[in-house]
Every structure is written in structure tokens, then in C-alpha cells.
């Protein structure tokens, strides 16, 4: 890793679920994950619901305190430090932009609050100028400061939430399903905007999504998560065109291809069932109950996360089985 902006070593995030009626359970939402993200890179994180991809994103920002392991930002261990100086440099955007905006406040007020809290801008008019400038950066009219969040469509709200994170001049942005709630025609606008901003401002992204074509499009490298673990990691093109893990190949094969003449049909895939729960992770390889190639060893021993070709890692006993 040459210029890693952020990296994690053996990161764990476990949640304890307490209940009156049953013994408390531990959910291993993030389970021994190590990764690094280079400066200016887009790292895509894919996986199904409840695989822990959002938790991993939030734990990297220490919005969740890690259970164990370490996080290093620009060469400095930030696992235990006061995050205050880092907050403005490490930001997150969410799936539901409206959820992070007070519906009673005008856009100008929402921006002003953030600027004031961070001591940016000398007076109100100065802060208003900064707000307008950032709205223009994301393709909105500066007059938007006079309007309320509900007056905007979903795509515009996402632009506003991106603009609001940008006024703090972040270096690292966690994008947690930023386009999932948007219509197809609007998704492409937001993806293009994120790519433009990355070029202009040299941003580094952790892009979390369950939408494989979009992750493939925007990412340089990709990690595939399954029940809290990254089970495959490599360059975007390698993971998509030559997946090693049977789960990754099944995931790729499940994406419908928008061409009625395509001979590949998502229907012909072989895996069954669904992902299960992080509170009862199967023994051995956690994918074995759904894996068509599972054998005795997979049920008993957890496969190591091994490098199969430079930069392409996979955790599977039979990495070529799906080929």
C-alpha cells in the first residue's frame, strides 16, 4: 500500500442484542476485516442486506466504536483518539438525504448551521456566499438557499446533502447507498456528479451499494462482503470478470442483463436460500450452507484470506470451483 489514506487492521464490530425473553446474542456485524483505501481511489463495498457493509463504513468513521482492531488515517492511529479534528475531513452521505435535514429549516439555514459549528466564514453574508457557491458546485441554483428540503426531488435532495458535506472540505467520503432511493434516470446524474467532484477535489470514496453495475462502474477496487467478512477483494475489473469466490460469481450471475437476446440468464444460477443472520454465523466457511461446491473441509475450517494474484484476495478453499 503506497498512499493509503485510511486503513483498517483486524477490525471488529460486534453488537450485543439483549432481550427479555431470550439469552442475549452477539451479532458479528464486522468480523476481522482488514483493508486500505488509497488517496483519490474509489473503493466499492458490495454485498446483500445485513452483510455488514454499512456498519463497516460507519466503524471506519468511528460513528460506531470498533470492538477491536485498529484504524489508521494518514499514518496515524485514530482508533482511540478524539475524533473532533478528523470529523470535517471524514464525512458520510446517506441513502435517504431528507432524513438528515430538518424539514422546518431552509437550505440556507441548514448550511449556516454546519458552517457556524465548524467556525467557517466570518459573518452571515460570508457564510451565505459559501453556501451558494457549494450549491452551484453540485449543479443547483444558488437561490435554493431560500427553499425548504421538501420542495426538492429526491435527486436534488441528494445533491444538497453532498453540497453540505463538501463545505467542510472533506478528504474521505463514505457514500452509503447514495443512489438506491433514486429513479434510474436520476441515479446516473448523481454518479456522474460524484465522479466529477472526485476529479475536481481529489476526494477518496468508500462507495457502499448493493447495486453491482453501479459499483462496478464507479470503483477502482471492490470488496465483497458476506456475513461480516470481506470474502473477496481485488480490482474492479478482476472481481467482475474473473471472480474467485463462488458467492461473488453467484452475485454477478444474479444481475439481470438488459438485453433480451442475452444468452446469460440470471435465472440459471445455482445458489439457494438467503444470507442468514450475523448472530448465528455458520461454522467453517460462512458461505458453505449456500455453496454448491461445499465439501467436508468447508464445513469445519474457515478458509484463509489468501492472495491468489497480485492484489486479488479471496477466502475460499476451492477458489476455482465456480469457473
Amino acid at each position, binding site marked *: 500500500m503506497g498512499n493509503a489514506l485510511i486503513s483498517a487492521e483486524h477490525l471488529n464490530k460486534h453488537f450485543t442484542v439483549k432481550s427479555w425473553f431470550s439469552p442475549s446474542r452477539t451479532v458479528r456485524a464486522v468480523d476481522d476485516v482488514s483493508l486500505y483505501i488509497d488517496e483519490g481511489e474509489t473503493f466499492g463495498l458490495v454485498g446483500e442486506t445485513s452483510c455488514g457493509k454499512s456498519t463497516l463504513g460507519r466503524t471506519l468513521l468511528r460513528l460506531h466504536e470498533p470492538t477491536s482492531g485498529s484504524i489508521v488515517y494518514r499514518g496515524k492511529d485514530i482508533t482511540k483518539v478524539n475524533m473532533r479534528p478528523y470529523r470535517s475531513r471524514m464525512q458520510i452521505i446517506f441513502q435517504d438525504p431528507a432524513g438528515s435535514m430538518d424539514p422546518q429549516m431552509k437550505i440556507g439555514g441548514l448550511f449556516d448551521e454546519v458552517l457556524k459549528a465548524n467556525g467557517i466564514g466570518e459573518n452571515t453574508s460570508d457564510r451565505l456566499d459559501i453556501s451558494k457557491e457549494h450549491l452551484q458546485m453540485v449543479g443547483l441554483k444558488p437561490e435554493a438557499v431560500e427553499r425548504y428540503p421538501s420542495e426538492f426531488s429526491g435527486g436534488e435532495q441528494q445533491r444538497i446533502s453532498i453540497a453540505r458535506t463538501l463545505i467542510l472540505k472533506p478528504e474521505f467520503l463514505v457514500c452509503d447507498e447514495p443512489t438506491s432511493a433514486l429513479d434510474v434516470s436520476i441515479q*446516473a446524474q448523481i454518479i456522474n456528479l460524484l*465522479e466529477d467532484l472526485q476529479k475536481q477535489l481529489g476526494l477518496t470514496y468508500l462507495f457502499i451499494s448493493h447495486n453491482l453495475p453501479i459499483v462496478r462502474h464507479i470503483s477502482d477496487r471492490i470488496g465483497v462482503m458476506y456475513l461480516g467478512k470481506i470474502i473477496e477483494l481485488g480490482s474492479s475489473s478482476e472481481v467482475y470478470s474473473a471472480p474467485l469466490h463462488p458467492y461473488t460469481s453467484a452475485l454477478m450471475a444474479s444481475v439481470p442483463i438488459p438485453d433480451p437476446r442475452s444468452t446469460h440468464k440470471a435465472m440459471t444460477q445455482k445458489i439457494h436460500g438467503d444470507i442468514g443472520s450475523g448472530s448465528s454465523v455458520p461454522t467453517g466457511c460462512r458461505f458453505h450452507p449456500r455453496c454448491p461446491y461445499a465439501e467436508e473441509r468447508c464445513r469445519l475450517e474457515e478458509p484463509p484470506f489468501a492472495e491468489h494474484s497480485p492484489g486479488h484476495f479471496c477466502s475460499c478453499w476451492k477458489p476455482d470451483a465456480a469457473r
Partner: protein
Amino acid sequence: MNAPLLSVKDLQVTFRGDSGIVNAVRGVSFDIHDGEILGVVGESGSGKSATAYSIMGLLNSSGRVVGGAVEYRGENILGSPRSRWDELRGRRIGMIFQNPMACLDPMITVGKQLREAAQCHSGMSKAEADAAALSLLAKVGVADADRIVRQYSSALSGGMCQRVMIAMALIQKPELLIADEPTTSLDVTVQAQIIQLLDSLRKENNMAILFITHDMGLVAEICDSVCVMYAGRAVERGSVYDVFDSPAHPYTAGLMKAIPSVEAGTRSRLVSIEGVPVNLSGLPGGCPFHPRCTFCEEKCTRVPPDTVTVGEGHTCGCWYPLKGGL
């Protein structure tokens, strides 16, 4: 061709909203034949769900069908008395929804709900209904049906609930299944299983499916024909081959270009459709798509386009249909 199973003719639906009357569906027509899967695609506010709910007579109290006809085997079922609906719904026409969890009663076991669905108007005994439920659950890919029927919906995963709901919709062997975004809340691996299931059920029972989705990929995957909706209108209709090979409406063409392909190697820029989705309470004059259309001419801003035939069974609502795609 035989007479269609279902024929929607110039359907018009309005909703009463805070800011007055909203025209959600404005003159939609299409046919579905036995054993055919028709995909209805469109974005939020395009009127696709309102169309489906009208066919089922399930519009909520603020919605009203104000014009057109829905003919089921030649009989106009709009405005039928309740007793006629009871004969149709569930028995002849089944429906599955986007959120299966919300459609199952959390206080009744899955088995009992299935039994209820089977016995409704069918005169089946309890034992017959239970047997039918078990065999159907097995058919929709539930491995341990004996155990599942004793469970409550909250104990089941989303994919399992969707299977239960499909079983419930199919238990009286309907001729038409209306599927409103049946896989949108599911993960792709489970989505693939459900799609596979719907396709095999269609083949076995010669059942027709009205498949509502926003995913062009799914349309290509299982549909025979497609109806693209925008702002309450069917802007393009045709077989999947015609529509995917040579989309005639700029909106359809834009939708297809906006999807990044898994196979595409390079990080080329996505082609987006500019502007914002249509707001039904403030529709622009002329063609509703004109503010976002790259081919917009003066005429488009004034006069709503007629539906024209661009090929055999391929129609398009545009003044300047594209030739040979983009």
C-alpha cells in the same frame, strides 16, 4: 391472435391530493394474452402502480377511475358489483406486492393464512386446503414447508415471505398474476430465484403476468412485451425485442443508456436523463417529457403527441420517434 385475456382501454385515474386533483393515469391501453408476461416499466409517479390497482379494483379512497375500460375476457369489470370482484380477485386474478412482510398478518401463522386463501369461495375442506398449501409451498421453493406453515411471518426472511405471498396468490390457480415490483426489496440472489420461479409457473399453468418494475434488466430477462410509462401515459409499447433493439421514444432510449452495464470494461461516463422526474400536479404542456428531452422541438412544447405505430405491434407516443435506436 386470440382474444386477449385482459384488455385495458384508455384508462384514466385521478387522485384527490392536498393540492387538488392529480391525473395519475392519463389514457393507458394495453392487452395481455394467456401465458404472456407484460412488463410495465416506469419511474415513481409514472402511474404504473395506479394502473395495476385499478385493474384489481383496489384503489384507495382518494383514487378514482374516471374513464376507460378494463376488459377481462371481453367483460368490462370496472364498476362491477362487489360480488363480481369477489369472484375475480384471488380466484381469477392474483396479486403480489413489493413488501411481502406488510401483506402477511403477523398474528396468524403462515399456514392458517394460506388455508384461508385456499378456502375462500372454493368450498375446499380444511384438510384439502392444507394439503394444497403444502404442495404449493414446495413448488415455490420452500424446502421445509411443514415447519414454515407453523411459523409467523416475523420469523421468516424477506425472500421466504415473498415465496409465501406468491403461494397465496397462486393457490386458486389464477389466470392472471399482477406482480407489483415483487423483487424490489429483495437481494439479487433471492431476486434471481423468484424470477426463475415466476417464469416456471407461467409455463406450467399458462398464467399471464403483469409485471410492474423499474428495472429494465428484469424486463429483458422474463418479459415477452413491455409497456413504458411516463407521467401517466404509455409512451412506448412493443415486444421486448423491438423495444430493446430499437427504442422509439427518447425516454425509453434514455432509460436504457442510463443503466451501467456489468460487462462494460471502461469507466466511461454514464448517460443520464437530465432534469427531474415529472411532478404530476404541475405537468408541462405538450409532451410531458419535453423539458427533459434532447430531441425536443417547438411542436413538442405545445401539442401532446399522438400514439403512432412504428413497427408491427410497436407503438410510441412521440412526435419524432427515433429510428433504429440512439
